[in-house]
């Protein structure tokens, strides 16, 4: 029994329960005319806010209730102003999927070329180094102006942020195939094409997959912000819209969902990586 209690997951649950308790305490305790959170809000917002009724941070129960309502109506699609949260998530995931797939289709072949021909890598490196650190959102106005379409723009943003990690890790993986494997090809005279497809490519698969994992994480990261700025649907738009309506509980529910889906995407790609990578 004692051993069971020392398991890390027990501690995780304890931390979670503790967090909920503190949250509940901070948001519900003083039931006077001005709640603790109101006082907090007043302090943050200045004296002007102290007198009026402000929307407080909701309690865990309120968030849970809101979560239940949102999920109960997740698939609502009766009018454009009442789109269920599931649809927003589907929009976001579809944009991520499209942008990510495009990035994959560009990054892997290009990374392969850069890895095989160091001269190409050196020639393109300055451009990669300059474009890579640019915040994806910096592209947004330019994308909106160019494509005149918010959906295409968000997909472009996902593409531009997902392409770099995959490009660089593919190029690195292709360029750093172990010397002993290259020597096998040379000693036994494996022809160029077979060498690339049966030696270099399998050898760089683990690197390509770890690049994909980083990219999907960044893509999911960025989609929320991109949709806040330039979309009329999607989970980012949903969060921004709820903020405009001061539906704090809905925002919190959405944040939790974004986190859960991000985790799921990462686990899926990790599994795929384990399946496709060679073992030693």
């Amino acid at each position: 029994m004692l051993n069971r209690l020392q398991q890390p997951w027990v501690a995780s649950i304890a931390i979670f329960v503790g967090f909920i308790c503190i949250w509940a305490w901070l948001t519900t305790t003083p039931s006077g005319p001005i709640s603790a959170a109101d006082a907090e809000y007043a302090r943050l917002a200045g004296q002007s806010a102290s007198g009026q009724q402000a929307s407080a941070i909701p309690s865990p129960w309120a968030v849970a209730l809101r979560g239940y309502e949102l999920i109960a109506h997740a698939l609502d699609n009766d009018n454009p102003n009442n789109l269920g949260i599931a649809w927003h998530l589907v929009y976001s995931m579809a944009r991520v999927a499209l942008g990510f797939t495009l990035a994959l289709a560009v990054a892997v072949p290009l990374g392969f070329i850069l890895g095989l021909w160091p001269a190409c890598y050196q020639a393109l490196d300055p451009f990669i180094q300059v474009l890579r650190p640019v915040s994806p959102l910096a592209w947004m106005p330019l994308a909106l102006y160019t494509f005149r379409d918010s959906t295409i723009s968000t997909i472009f943003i996902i593409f531009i942020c997902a392409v770099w990690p995959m490009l660089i890790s593919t190029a690195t993986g292709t360029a750093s195939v172990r010397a002993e494997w290259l020597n096998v090809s040379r000693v036994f005279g494996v022809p160029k094409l077979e060498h690339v497809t049966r030696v270099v490519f399998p050898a760089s698969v683990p690197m390509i997959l770890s690049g994909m994992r980083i990219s999907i994480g960044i893509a999911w990261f960025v989609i929320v912000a991109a949709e806040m700025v330039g979309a009329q649907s999607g989970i980012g738009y949903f969060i921004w819209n709820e903020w405009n309506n001061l539906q704090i509980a809905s925002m919190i529910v959405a944040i939790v969902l974004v986190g859960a889906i991000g985790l799921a995407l990462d686990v899926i790609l990790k599994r795929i990586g384990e399946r496709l990578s060679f073992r030693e």
Partner: protein
Amino acid sequence: MADLDINDVSMSFVDRSGKQLIALDRISLAIEHSEFVCLIGHSGCGKSTLLNIVAGLLMPTSGTIRCASAVVTGPGPERAMVFQSHALLPWMTCVENVHLAVKQAFRGAPRSELMDRAEQALKLVHLEHAIGKYPFEISGGMKQRVGIARAFAVQPKVLLLDEPFGALDALTRSSLQDELVRIVETTKTTVVMVTHDIDEAIFLSDRIVALSNGPAARIGRIWKVETPRPRDRLKLTTDFEGIKYRKEILEFLYKKEPFPQFAS
């Protein structure tokens, strides 16, 4: 005509500061058909460099290598190599690893014949049970067996071994040495092997070539091992002859050509 003719081969590298470092200095050695030659010397003396030049992986700064009277200009199927780190491709099964090499050596042969050759090679090293296994599923000694099978499968004129048993434990090493002797006796392959294991060299070789210390390594001394075959590993450790070679080689390596930092 010698199977392998190393003629006045020198190798120098240019280091970072632009200084020229001579690794091998005018090395000449002729190796007869079905002869087993071990290259021995301190680590870093250039014996692996010499083997890589013979393999065609490195081009010498001057001098030529001839294999069966053809000048070596790069790697070729008549010179197969067993690497120090087994160098199996981990995403291919054992038989696929061998098949990859066989396919290049017998280009144009039907797939069934190539597969058959690959399987035969694995049977030769007693690995019929590991044919469909991946390298991660088998032990270090078995991996090196696959490496040996791959090299023999292409039926090379000259087999090059770069410290193939260096990473193995003593028992596995002996059993692989026995395996190697048995196969070489039947195939009559010419062998050049790099090792730093004196007992291994005495047990396997017809000739032991000791390189002097680098930089600018030369051939220091050559022993012809006259002990008749089949050799008995145990007897070599007690026989006068075995002890004599052992003593002479040790003397050469530690007295005449001591490791640079031990030189007084």
